[in-house]
């Protein structure tokens, strides 16, 4: 029984060692940053605290496509109010553009009819025309 216990103990220890992170120790490539995050950081840099920023991304569904871009924008735009242009029922809300100060358009092929503030990293920041 003692031999069996030793065997089982060793098996648990061996099976418990997860080497996934150890393998990455030899990977010296720099960490990556999402292009969308780089775009949002530029948006944060070019908009004042408290500004309302509509998130314009052409996706059909809210979950998971638009939700990803919207939630990520809420995270990357601290102190600004990220405004969704789509709701969880997949309905578009273009009327919300009337109440925002800025529009962050990501990967949008068609330019929006507003004052362009900056373009880069696959996106454009607009100030809403008044």
């Amino acid at each position, binding site marked *: *029984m003692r031999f069996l*216990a030793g065997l089982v103990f060793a098996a648990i220890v061996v*099976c418990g060692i997860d080497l996934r*992170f*150890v393998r990455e120790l030899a990977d010296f490539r720099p960490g990556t940053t*999402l292009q969308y995050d780089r775009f949002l950081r530029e948006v944060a840099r070019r908009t004042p605290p408290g500004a309302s920023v509509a998130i314009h991304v052409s996706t059909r569904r809210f979950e998971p496509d638009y939700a990803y871009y919207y939630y990520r924008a*809420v*995270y990357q735009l601290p102190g600004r109010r990220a405004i969704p242009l789509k709701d969880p029922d997949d309905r578009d809300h273009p009327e919300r553009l009337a109440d925002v100060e800025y529009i962050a358009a990501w990967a949008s092929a068609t330019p929006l009819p507003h004052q362009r503030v900056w373009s880069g990293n696959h996106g454009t920041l607009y100030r809403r025309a008044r």
Partner: protein
Amino acid sequence: MIVALTQVLILGLPLAILLDRAASRLRLLGLSFLLGSGAVSLVLLALPRWSPVTVTAAVLALSAMLWSVAWKRRPAFGAIVRPHPADYGTLLLVVAHARAATRAFFDEWDFWAIWGLKGRVFLTHRGIDWAWLETPANAFAHPDYPPLLSLNYAFYAMQAGEWNDARLGLVTTLFGAAVLLLVRDFFDERFAAWATLGVASLALSPWVGLAEAPLIAYGTAGLLFLRSRQLLLGALMLGLAACTKNEGLTLVAAAAGALALSGRWRDVPRLWPALAVAAPWQVMRAFHALPTDLLAGPVQQRIAANVARRSEFFGALAAERPVQPELWIALLVAMLLFARHLGRERFVLFTVALQLAFYLAAFASTPKDLTWHLETAAARLLEQMALPLAFAVLSVVGVEYGGNRFRTQKEATAKYASPPRALPEHDRRCTS
């Protein structure tokens, strides 16, 4: 990061000395981090407005008060434990986790949509932003979730002067390393180093940035202290687990149930510190009407509907794989082979079983799509209980391997300058 970590330890160390005089150096270090992180979150919760100056002043004032009591109670440091070769393996796993956690951008949805997001919102607001939490559009961030981790993120970022995703990844590693120091100390010393190496990957959560790591740390620490009959520390740790995730609240209930099932009825009321620590957030949450989605709406109807889909549920559950399936197979085989000895660890095993039952109940009442919820949460939830389960099984198997010779009181006394307040039940039985 270093300034904030130093403050966490300065605050945690006197607490650790006051609460666990018998602690070895390793345990004291791990305990200092866990208690300090919990205390920092409670300080931030209590302060209406934050700035680096006011927060640092509050932390230092509190730690000065604690030190004024703790310095009289010099901890009973034992001899420095010489590292075992297996300890270097554990250290390698910790270092590798730290490097991975700090070099990658956070791709975990729950970090930037829940835990990190709220930390960043609180940091920007310089306090708990109740208006933001109460806004229905922000319900996706689960405003009701306990804020210990988010508050710690805000603390580290505030003291560093900037929000840095990569650096905050280190918090996950620190919680894992802290509980490993405790686990190393709780294992029977004859096989502690190897056993700690075997469970290290369970403490070092692959879900970097999420609340899994602190929950595993506080939950496991709580159960191990309760197992050793250090009830106050065990209850406090469970209370901090309840300040970390809602699963921590059910863990308190599971531990209470397990105490009762293992014949320790009298210890159940002594878990009150867990509720006292968890209470402030729960009261504030109720005051601000931040509901838990699992309990909101027609719960009974949802349970009935989800139970009707049980074949689909169990089919999806069977398709789920734990993070380390080979380890789970090894643990299950060990439990079958040494079933008659498992009674020695019945408290921990009952707790794990009850907590898993709570998870099933949570799935039954989910307002989300049942299969989706299962696919996104099952492996994580299972992992929360893996460390205490592996600890219990390895303790049973290790003792069998060691010829059933429990640590004697003499050995325990040699390890600590003064004997521990209480040895585990089986230790006391065998040494009396």
